[in-house]
């Protein structure tokens, strides 16, 4: 089901959509966060009346409501599915708010490992921010409640919700990180989240989807930068650590509690194992949170790469570290002599890492290794530029003597990875998110030149700026059952039921076979209606009135016992069931319903007027009498129109107007007249009179 992107245009210009484009074929992608920024990832996508939200994070640089994505831009109640790629705060932390404080009714999915860590991470987040922030977005209870609404999905497992089919691929980055592919009516969108195509010690490289999505929403954190090879970085890292501690210094590694920290610990633990001389120097791991999450790492081995799974298979769990001790608080830390401490948060905003930094920053022997991407506005970002002085948490300034190293172990894709990834999956539309404006602009430029001439659109919308795309998806229906007994030739006509399932598949079939071929076990039925109308007059009156009203009133062919019955227009059977009522019976369809309604009206009318309004002889009138009556009416009306009208022989009317004489045949309407103008007038008049006098023919029957 190839779909073709017809156009791609930013809403800002708001050009009128082409006339043949239906609203249903328009896909709109709107970043509610992470548009030209890093943090609060949240991308809204709608197509064909379905809406998907990717990620739901907060901005680590802001607090309170300001940290949220721009939820006001969308209708939360209309979002069908919310897909969370991984547990980082900038991808998942707005979830309790979105679930508990908005009208969102849809379903939320994430991978098993993500869900397990999500809860711990958010509880920790609430605990930490409680101290400093007044307007909390949500509390512990909201998080616990959100756990009940989150559903889990395994890698590659395909799930369908309300016609939205989606599944996920391993994305590297952190444990449980996924990239989601969404398929709505054949249009496919790939949302990478944060991903890394480089296999590290415990995580697999991001998978490359085996198809080409129509739209790829991709992160651009590192823009056009290029990582050093991993072994070079690892060597630099271990060298800095070992040289610092061997000179008696302390090493501070401010890291996000989860994700890279585990990778670094694996490196350090292995390095220590290979260097017995370092055994006396402690590695502290100061995060109660990470300690709690270790069980998750030890369990979800299947989300990790082959290396570590094999290691697991043949020896003990590699996450049982031999040289790493965990540290609960700064009070229980005996700061004597060299040590290596890994502490959160990674941005040195507050908490343990900040306390240690304040304590150690004036000593030139010490070192601080910043191992990952740092968000603008945090202290970590400031010290990378190695200022002479820094402001401590207590507001004083102190000289910055400690050595600051920046070695990126961040598991985000760099330019060669991004470019290779896009080169392999070749999406016709690329939407850049999750990157600073400058990096993103450079990346966009490079990608545009890379895909020059391949009809690829690259856009980098700002927050709340929608990207519109039009897809003309090919709709293929499957004709089944007796309809399909032979394949029709050109020019044959096909008619049947067209059944559209939620998943946008089409089937054409005979209505009688509905039940056989539908998965929902639909079936067809007739509704027969029987209604009794109170009426106590004579049935003859009914017959008379009906005869007056309808063109076709017949005696019912099937007489039940000796109850008199009439069939009106071969649809509605009117019968006298009891003394006090008349029963109408018909099978439902719009015309019969209309006829029956009018029959009911007629009968009610009779009752209202009472039986005395009808003369017996009139009721018994023959067809001839009707004709005569009609003739009389025609005569009278003609007189009123033309004045001098005489009745001729055999129903002929002789009309004289201003000396011109016309003969009108009362039955056929033929007019003999020398004056053409008069002839025409009489013909028209007669036609109209006939139309008024005779019953309305029911053309549909």
């Amino acid at each position: 089901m190839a779909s073709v992107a017809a156009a791609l245009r930013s809403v800002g210009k708001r050009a009128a959509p082409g006339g043949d484009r239906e609203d249903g074929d328009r896909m709109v992608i709107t970043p509610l966060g992470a548009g030209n920024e890093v943090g609060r990832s949240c991308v809204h996508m709608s197509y064909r009346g379905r809406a998907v939200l990717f990620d739901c994070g907060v901005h680590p640089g802001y607090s309170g409501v300001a940290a949220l994505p721009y939820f006001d831009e969308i209708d939360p109640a209309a979002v069908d599915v919310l897909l969370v790629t991984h547990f980082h705060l900038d991808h998942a932390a707005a979830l309790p708010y979105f679930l508990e404080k908005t009208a969102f009714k849809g379903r939320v999915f994430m991978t098993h490992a993500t869900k397990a860590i999500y809860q711990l991470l958010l509880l920790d987040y609430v605990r930490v921010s409680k101290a400093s922030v007044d307007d909390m977005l949500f509390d512990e209870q909201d998080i616990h409640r959100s756990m009940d609404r989150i559903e889990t999905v395994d890698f590659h497992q395909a799930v369908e919700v309300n016609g939205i089919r989606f599944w996920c691929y391993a994305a590297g980055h952190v444990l449980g990180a996924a990239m989601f592919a969404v398929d709505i009516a054949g249009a496919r969108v790939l949302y990478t989240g944060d991903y890394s195509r480089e296999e590290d010690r415990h995580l697999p490289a991001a998978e490359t989807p085996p198809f080409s999505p129509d739209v790829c929403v991709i992160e651009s954190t590192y823009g056009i930068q290029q990582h050093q090879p991993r072994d070079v970085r690892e060597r630099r890292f271990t060298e800095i650590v070992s040289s610092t501690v061997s000179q008696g210094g302390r090493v501070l590694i401010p890291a996000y509690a989860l994700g890279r920290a585990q990778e670094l610990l694996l490196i350090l633990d292995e390095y220590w194992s290979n260097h017995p001389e370092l055994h006396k120097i402690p590695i502290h791991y100061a995060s109660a949170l990470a300690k709690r999450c270790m069980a998750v790492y030890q369990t979800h081995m299947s989300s990790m790469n082959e290396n570590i799974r094999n290691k697991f298979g043949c020896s003990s769990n590699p996450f049982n570290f031999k040289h790493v001790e965990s540290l609960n608080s700064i009070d229980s830390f005996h700061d004597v002599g060299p040590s290596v401490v890994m502490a959160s948060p990674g941005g040195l905003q507050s908490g343990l890492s900040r306390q240690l930094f304040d304590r150690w920053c004036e000593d030139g022997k010490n070192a601080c290794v910043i191992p990952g991407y740092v968000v603008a506005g945090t202290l970590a970002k400031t010290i990378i530029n190695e200022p002479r002085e820094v402001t401590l948490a207590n507001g004083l300034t102190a000289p910055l003597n400690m050595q600051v190293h920046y070695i990126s172990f961040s598991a985000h894709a760099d330019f060669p990875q991004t470019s290779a990834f896009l080169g392999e999956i070749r999406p016709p539309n690329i939407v850049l998110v999750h990157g600073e404006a400058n990096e993103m602009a450079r990346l966009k430029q490079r990608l545009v030149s890379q895909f020059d001439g391949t009809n690829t659109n690259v856009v980098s919308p700002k927050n709340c700026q929608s990207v519109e795309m039009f897809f003309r998806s090919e709709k293929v229906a499957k004709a089944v059952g007796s309809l399909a007994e032979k394949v029709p030739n050109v020019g044959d006509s096909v008619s049947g039921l067209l059944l559209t399932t939620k998943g946008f598949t089409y089937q054409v079939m005979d209505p009688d076979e509905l039940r056989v071929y539908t998965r929902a076990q639909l079936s067809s039925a007739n509704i027969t209606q029987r209604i009794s109308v109170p009426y106590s007059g004579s049935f003859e009156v009914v017959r008379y009135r009906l005869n007056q009203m309808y063109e076709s009133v017949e005696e019912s062919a099937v007489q039940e016992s000796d109850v008199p019955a009439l069939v009106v227009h071969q649809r509605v059977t009117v019968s006298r069931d009891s003394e006090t009522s008349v029963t109408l019976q018909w099978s439902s369809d719009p015309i019969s319903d209309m006829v029956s309604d009018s029959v009911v009206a007629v009968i009610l009318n009779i009752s209202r007027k009472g039986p005395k309004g009808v003369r017996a002889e009139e009721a018994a009138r023959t067809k001839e009498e009707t004709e005569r009556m009609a003739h009389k009416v025609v005569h009278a009306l003609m007189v009123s129109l033309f004045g001098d009208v005489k009745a001729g022989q055999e129903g002929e009317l002789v009309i004289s107007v201003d000396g011109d004489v016309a003969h009108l045949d009362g039955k056929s309407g033929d007019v003999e007249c020398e004056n053409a103008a008069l002839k025409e007038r009489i013909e028209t008049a007669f036609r109209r009179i006939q139309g008024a006098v005779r019953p309305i023919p029911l053309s549909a029957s």
Partner: protein
Amino acid sequence: MGTSVQVTPLSGVYGESPLCYLLAVDGFRFLLDCGWSDLCDPSQLEPLAKVAPTIDAVLLSHPDMMHLGALPYAMKHLGLSAPVYATEPVFRLGLLTMYDHFLSRWQVSDFDLFTLDDVDSAFQNVVRLKYSQNHLLRDKGEGIVIAPHVAGHLLGGTVWKITKDGEDVIYAVDFNHRKETHLNGTVLTSFVRPAVLITDAYNALNNQGYKRKQDQNFVDALLKVLASGGSVLLPVDTAGRVLELLLILDEYWGQRNLKYPIHFLTNVSTSTIDFVKSFLEWMNDSISKEFEQNRDNPFLLKNVSLIINKEELEKLGDAPKVVLASMASLEVGFSHDIFVEMANDTKNLVLFTEKGQFGTLARMLQVDPPPKAVKVTVSKRIPLVGDELKAYEEEQERIKKEESLKASLIKEEELKASHGLNAKASDPMAIDGSSSRKSSNAGSHFGANVDILIDGFVPPSTSVAPMFPFFENTAEWDDFGEVINPDDYMMKQEEMDYSMMHGSGDGLDGKIDEGSARLLLDSTPSKVVSNEMTVQVRCSLAYMDFEGRSDGRSVKSVIAHVAPLKLVLVHGSAEATEHLKMHCAKNSDLHVYAPQVEETIDVTSDLCAYKVQLSEKLMSNIISKKLGEHEIAWLDAEVGKEDEKLILLPPSSPPPPINFKQFLENKGWQVEFAGGALRCGEYITVRKIGDSIQKGGAGSQQLVIEGPLCEDYYKIRELLYSQFYLL
């Protein structure tokens, strides 16, 4: 036309023989399961042997012998070489089951039907899938999508859905609709109206009680024996139902703080539990929820000790204990040995939790009344000593010589070939069957191993210049000396980093427990000594159904719910199969088949179908109405060239009844059923006439709405209409 589908059972119909079926979908041949009984009788596999090389893909549904036991043998000896598809737990636990089975056999016999290497290589072909993962087949199977779904019964147990052109073939054997302590119930009931459903009649005649009560009875029976000083033996499978039993016991022991030891004894018990611990996402929702919220892993099994050899058990002496030991059939393995020891004591209990396989010791003991005594063979592998050892060594020597002779002959052959000789060279040795098989081995050694022609060999007359194979080692030189390849001298940074990780090679060998590895690596020549003996069965015997399969009633309702167009029944005793067949045939409009072994039945659906494209113009004119999950519209169109074109006139025809009663109730009407009619409000009745069990085909129903003229009448009618699409 529809997709052609044929089913040929190769084993496992009209009886309880292992499961193995051939399914051809448009010529693509699936092997559904590849089971073997615990007796490992190659004659059972004869039907499979005939077709094995033609198989295109193997789908495994459960990690036990009955579903995958024959895989290594078939791969090794029957020419089965197709890729195998299974879920991760079926792969892991299946592998462990095969290890355990081999080790159990090997300890008591000269088992040579397959080796551990064969098991490894058979499982190397396995493509591991996740539940609900749609896997597209390639090449010959283009257009076929296979997807595993939750089956219950065993961890990782799979209901396979095979889809081609929108038609589903579902293979669902041994499913369990009930949620258990560690597993979710099957999702089979979420499939509606597949073209073909292949299922088993195994439990068609059995009905089960309530699970909670059953668990309680089970634990009570154990405690009674333990309290009176006896021990309990539970013969179990390696990594299947035993997990459920372990959880029940561990939980109960934990709650009651019981002190009786529980032992889980298989050759691979520690690995099994290690892997199971990391398969939480495959288990039931409450387990994964418990882990997500509190990080509690139930398979930490605080009250169970995992042991991998019998010596440890013997150290414990005669104290009352519960032992779960493999194999369930009591044929060989730890359970067999322990049974022989325990059978003599009236205090003891042997509790079977599943029906023994046909013809096994377990089955013999399950008859009513149980036999007073049974004949068993007690075997043991002992190291060779004295003369025997000498003879063995001589034999080995001789074999080695023969091998090298053969190898050299083959080398000779290849040399000839490399010298461009006529391949038809009349060499009497080439006819030797073994030489052709060996050639691949020898080929790989060729060049590395330069042992040469042996005396007494006459070169074939056709050879031009019989020559000593001499290869000149030419080194290239240039102006700077010998040309080197810089790579040879590179420090392999990556390799050093990974040396730890790659330590285990392909990883498979590493996973056998050390104890078992010791058994295998121990290369001391050994032999098996066996003696027949008669065991007096004095201990009590009991059978409780912990098989974790849906019972007869549920199977019937599941089938009725799924309502396949065609139903194929397999696996189950003749009576059970007949019973279910009769039941299904009378209850609904479906076609039921119950083929015999090697009988091919054609279940191609008589569904005619062709595909048409819906033009944009047509679609924009269609007014469709939402109807439950579907949208429905009347379509009138003319067939155009290549894609469907042309006009659409709206209307004419109607569809389906939903639960109108409930609907009315929701709308605030007083509704009740009386005398086959639905009374709505005071006056109005709605009744359904005609065939209430809607037949397929012309499934039109008649609904009658009746009442006096009043406002309610029209309101009800409006509501009724709203449930229909009036065309």
